[in-house]
Every structure is written in structure tokens, then in C-alpha cells.
């Protein structure tokens, strides 16, 4: 029961933190909760499918299928998060101003809403598929009873969700004006961390050179499986011993998204004058 709780907690809390941030970042968009819930449901369904297909996925691309699949999922999430930030830098001010105005048409925010759904679904799918595999292994191993696996899993999921909710509730205390700055900074860093992770997957099947491996090693100082290390991993993409190429991806993602946001902002300013 304990091992089920620990693994489920570890996998779910990363997704929960991301969902908490997305929920805070989009709080002024009407009906966004429904889309987040739909994203979680789609992600869970997807996780079961991916877990069931693990064997098939793994044998694709000469045994690099799992890594390519993960890298693509992460890549899509990076693009969507970047797009979200750029979209927000154009519309964030309007949204803040209109926050109390009820009845913004969904049409206007349609693209943003589908972005929310997809990003949440991808995050849940990635963390969830491993959890499903693990729980399945526990059950078929015969040592654990169904009740103990289910209760352990539920406990872990609950703890993960509570942490995500605490982060969300904490962010809601930030004044609206500053909230966008905080969430968009976090989203840039999360996207950068995902890009670095995608690079790591490609390096481990030798599709991408690692450059210097590792560039540094903080495993002794701040282990990635500690609560602080894990939280930093989820929030800013902390990696205790990254390859040089991962750092290149991390920095490039930050630069690209910030440049996009800046361009949209200055285009908007010149349009207003």
C-alpha cells in the first residue's frame, strides 16, 4: 500500500502542480474549470491506452519508440505552453480588466480553452501512463491485494491533488495584475524544463548528442526524488545532473518564448499609438 501511495503521489503531484498553475493563469477565462476537468479525464483515458500499448510503442523506431513518443508529447506541450504565454501577453491586460465582467463569449477564448485541455491532458497522460503500468505490475505480482493497491493509489493521488490545490490557492492570493507575471514566468520555466526533458529522452537513445554529460552533478546536494527537488523539477525543470544539450534546450526555449512575448507586446503597443 505504501509503495503504491508513494509512486502515485510522485507522479500525480507533478501533473497537479502544472494544473494548479494553469488554473491560476486562466482564472479569468469563463468555463475554464470544465475544460481542465475534461483535460484530466482525457489524460487519464490516454494514460491507460499508452500503458496498454507500452510494448508496441517501445519496439517502434528500433527500440527508441518510448523516447520518441515522450519527446513528441513533451514537444507539443512546450509549443502549447509557449503559445499560451504569447497569447496571454497580448490579451492578459484585457482579461485582467474584464475579469469581473461575466459572459465573455467562449468563441473568443476557444483556442485558449482547447490549449488548456490539451496541455492538461498531455501532462496527465505522461505522468499517468507510468503509474498505470506500475499499479498493474503490483496487482499482477500477487503480493499486494486489490484493496491495498487501490487505497494506496487513492491516498497518493489525494496527496498530489492537495499539493496542486495549495499552490493554486496560494496563487489566487496574488493580485490579478501580478498574477499574470508570476504564472507566465512559471510557465516559461516549466516549458523550458519539458524541453530539457525531451532532449534527455533523445540523448538516451543516441538520437541527440549529449555534449557534456553531465554538465554538473547536484545529486548529493539536492536529490531529484526529495520533495524540494521534485517540486523544483515540476516548477522550474530542475535536473540534478543534466547533459549540456539539455541546458541548450532549456535556455533556447526561454529565449524563444520571451522573444515571442516581447514581439507581440511591442506590436500591440505600436498598434495602440
Amino acid at each position: 500500500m505504501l509503495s503504491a501511495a508513494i509512486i502515485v503521489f510522485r507522479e500525480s503531484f507533478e501533473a497537479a502542480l502544472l494544473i494548479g498553475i494553469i488554473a491560476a493563469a486562466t482564472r479569468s477565462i469563463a468555463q475554464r474549470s470544465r475544460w481542465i476537468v475534461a483535460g484530466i479525464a482525457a489524460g487519464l483515458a490516454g494514460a491507460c491506452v499508452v500503458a496498454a500499448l507500452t510494448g508496441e510503442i517501445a519496439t517502434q523506431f528500433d527500440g527508441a519508440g518510448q523516447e520518441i513518443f515522450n519527446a513528441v508529447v513533451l514537444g507539443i506541450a512546450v509549443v502549447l505552453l509557449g503559445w499560451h504565454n504569447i497569447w496571454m501577453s497580448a490579451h492578459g491586460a484585457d482579461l485582467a480588466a474584464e475579469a469581473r465582467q461575466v459572459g465573455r463569449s467562449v468563441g473568443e477564448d476557444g483556442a485558449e480553452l482547447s490549449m488548456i485541455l490539451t496541455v492538461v491532458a498531455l501532462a496527465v497522460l505522461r505522468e499517468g501512463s507510468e503509474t498505470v503500468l506500475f499499479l498493474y505490475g503490483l496487482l499482477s505480482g500477487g503480493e499486494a491485494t486489490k484493496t491495498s493497491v487501490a487505497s494506496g493509489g487513492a491516498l497518493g493521488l489525494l496527496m498530489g491533488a492537495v499539493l496542486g490545490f495549495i499552490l493554486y490557492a496560494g496563487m489566487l492570493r496574488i493580485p490579478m495584475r501580478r498574477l499574470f507575471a508570476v504564472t507566465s514566468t512559471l510557465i516559461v520555466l516549466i516549458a523550458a524544463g519539458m524541453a530539457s526533458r525531451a532532449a534527455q529522452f533523445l540523448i538516451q537513445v543516441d538520437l541527440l548528442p549529449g555534449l557534456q554529460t553531465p554538465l554538473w552533478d547536484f545529486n548529493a546536494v539536492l536529490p531529484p526524488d526529495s520533495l524540494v527537488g521534485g517540486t523544483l523539477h515540476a516548477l522550474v525543470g530542475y535536473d540534478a545532473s543534466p547533459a549540456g544539450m539539455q541546458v541548450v534546450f532549456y535556455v533556447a526555449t526561454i529565449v524563444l518564448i520571451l522573444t515571442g512575448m516581447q514581439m507581440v507586446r511591442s506590436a500591440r503597443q505600436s498598434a495602440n499609438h
Partner: protein
Amino acid sequence: MQRLLFALLLLPGLALAADLEFSLTISEHRFTPSALRVPAGKKIKLLIDNQDATAEEFESHELNREKVIPGKSKSFVFIGPLAPGRYPFFGDFNSKTAQGVVIAE
């Protein structure tokens, strides 16, 4: 320029150079060998054969690797080039028993 051309000519040869391969077997949720000696400073292809019926996740913080090996299947993961030292790894789905270490020397 000549040196650059020479280097470029060498590149395909490097890519074709046989990977240094080492094998790990997972059975009864344990790794064999549990201590794997590999040369330092070289990229290594680690072949992992999971003979158990259930999936295992080969994971190592020190090696910065994480890969699910489905039950009854073989897979691989590249590691290194490593500085001399000990790099513990474990099976995330059965970490009580599935423990091992790569020793680069």
C-alpha cells in the same frame, strides 16, 4: 580547412564505429549483474533484458536515465561518457529488490 575536411571525412566512420555494449538482466525483480564495470570516458549501450512478466523502470538519478522496460522484452539505453566513479541505478517499480550500480573505471 584541410583539417576540417579531414575531420568531416572521419565523421561517418565515427558514427559507424561499433557501440560498446554491456548487458543487464532483470529477473525476479533483481538486476544481474548488480555491479556492472564499464570503461570511463566512453559512450555505452546498455542492453536490458527484462525476463519478468511485469514491466520495470530502469532509473538512475546519477546517470540521469529513466526507461520503462515492458515485461518479457529487451531494450536498451545509452549512458556516458562517464567520469570514473559509482553510478547507482534501480528498478523504480520494485526498488526494494531491484538495485544495482554502474562502476566506471
